[in-house]
């Protein structure tokens, strides 16, 4: 590696990590939106992955190669407890339950000694590397792209457009919705584990309402045409505050406004990669 590139990576190390982790989070939101559901639990799942993996490293002294795959267990368990009852119902129930999950977990982290209270957990050894983060991101994108191209991808798109019609055509709607939520919880849990093991500190306020909505803004900026689009959305919104001075103060306001504009005026995202298909549905 040439020395200037080495310097650059060293200087912007945290940004390099953040871009990869936020890319994973964007994918975790994308999976659920791709089947026409809205889960606001990504930040909560990330927090569960971060706290559970940090405790496995700090208290149980497990090696990172065991901790990383195990970090999906707790988020998946929570996704099952919330997903099984809500996915049978209209979409608002999943959204409500997942927003509630984030608020509750924050209160639990703050008040239970095991999680370090307001101070969070610190001294987590830096065991993750940029290679791991980007390797996983690449794998996840590849997997989602392959799924999207397959028959399952078509079924998911059909569910997003009209769930009842998809069900009538024989798409196993419940199974795909559950699968999407579990995949989303896994991706977010992995992202949480990786970010905890590069930043050495995690706290209760990192996984609340603001990050949950921010993750949604990544995906709505990018659009859900392909798995690449949400990742690009995440990168743009992660880079902007770094590039423009004074921007970080209004970062959250902007994230919110992006969601409003995207929903009202740009239903395919700013970076709509795929053209809208001929005969795609117009406003009903």
């Amino acid at each position, binding site marked *: 590696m040439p020395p200037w590139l080495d310097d650059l990576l060293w200087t912007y190390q945290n940004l390099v990590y953040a871009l990869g982790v936020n890319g994973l989070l964007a994918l975790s939101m994308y999976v659920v939106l791709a089947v026409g559901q809205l889960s606001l639990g990504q930040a909560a799942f990330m927090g569960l992955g971060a706290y559970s993996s940090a405790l496995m490293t700090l208290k149980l002294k497990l090696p990172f190669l065991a901790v990383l795959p195990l970090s999906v267990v707790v988020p998946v368990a929570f996704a099952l*407890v919330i997903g*099984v*009852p809500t996915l049978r119902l*209209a979409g608002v129930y999943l959204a409500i339950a997942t*927003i*509630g*999950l984030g608020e509750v977990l924050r209160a639990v982290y703050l008040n239970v000694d095991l999680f370090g209270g307001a101070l969070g957990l610190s001294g987590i050894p830096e065991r993750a590397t940029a290679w791991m983060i980007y390797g996983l991101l690449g794998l996840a994108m590849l997997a989602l792209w392959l799924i999207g191209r397959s028959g399952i991808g078509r079924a998911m798109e059909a569910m997003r457009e009209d769930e009842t019609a998809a069900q009538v055509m024989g798409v196993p709607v419940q199974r795909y919705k559950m699968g999407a939520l579990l995949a989303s919880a896994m991706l977010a849990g992995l992202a949480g584990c990786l970010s905890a093991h590069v930043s050495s500190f995690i706290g209760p306020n990192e996984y609340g309402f603001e990050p949950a909505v921010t993750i949604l803004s990544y995906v709505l900026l990018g659009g859900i045409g392909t798995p690449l689009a949400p990742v690009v959305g995440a990168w743009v919104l992660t880079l902007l505050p770094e590039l423009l001075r004074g921007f970080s103060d209004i970062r959250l306001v*902007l994230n919110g406004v992006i969601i409003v504009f995207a929903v009202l005026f740009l239903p395919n995202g700013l970076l709509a990669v795929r053209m809208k298909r001929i005969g795609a549905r117009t406003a009903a």
Partner: protein
Amino acid sequence: MLAQQLVNGVLLGAVYALFALGFTLMFGVLRVINLTYGFYFSAGALLALWMARQGAPIWLALPLAALGAGCVAVVLDWVLLTRLRRIQAPELSSLMVTLGGVLALYSALTSWLGPDIRRLPPDLVAADAFHIGEVRVTAAQLLILGATTLLVAALLALMRGTRLGLAIRAMAEKPDAAQLMGIDTGRAAALVSFISGCLAGAGGVLIGLNFNAIHPYMGEAMMLRGFVVIIVGGLGDIRGALLAGLALGVIEVMTAGYVSSGLKEAVAFLILVAVLWTRPSGLFGRAVLRRA
């Protein structure tokens, strides 16, 4: 001790019920989970704080703050949701748009006012307390009881006893048919937003009085209670929200008193999940669920 906890719980629950009433009314009539709802709560509390600092007495600050929050609600509903209602967009769109809107509003408010917790002027409500046997009731608590009773009674009277209420109930039943019967649904929608905003704003002032802590994000913490109450009571069910709100207040106070105050949110959430597993139409719900 138990009697005191029960009284505190019922009073807290009365405010939860008030807050959730507007939320469930909005869903029942407009078919939208409007996530900006918590912001009206913050707006009401902050408006009352500002007026109290200008020297306004509580009997003036409370209603004005509630009306102000109602106006905020009408404006936000118009900006964020009229367009989506017109094109009959799927419910996820309206969820997402209100979510983005509320993040922008909270963070703008926080960067303007700062995240600090503010206190109401100490002489706003008399510090007197009354003793009934062993139970101690403060003047602020009496005010909470009086204001919530009055507002709930007014809402029920409006919904059950006036032509306006009839129009709103018709709209909740079947919006298209209501429009064909000559109801101005746009105006009724604005009115429902206004009423809901007033209820949330009044709730904000009363919670601000109860805990004497006001900050921009207070509405977000309240949303969890709102979710629990409207799901346990049954989405859109006014009577259910009243009962579930009171019950939640008592349960929270009991949890804080006998288990741990750090776990009261967790208990509320457990109730929410348990109801979703067993009775998703709400404890009192008979309504047919719109299954996906």
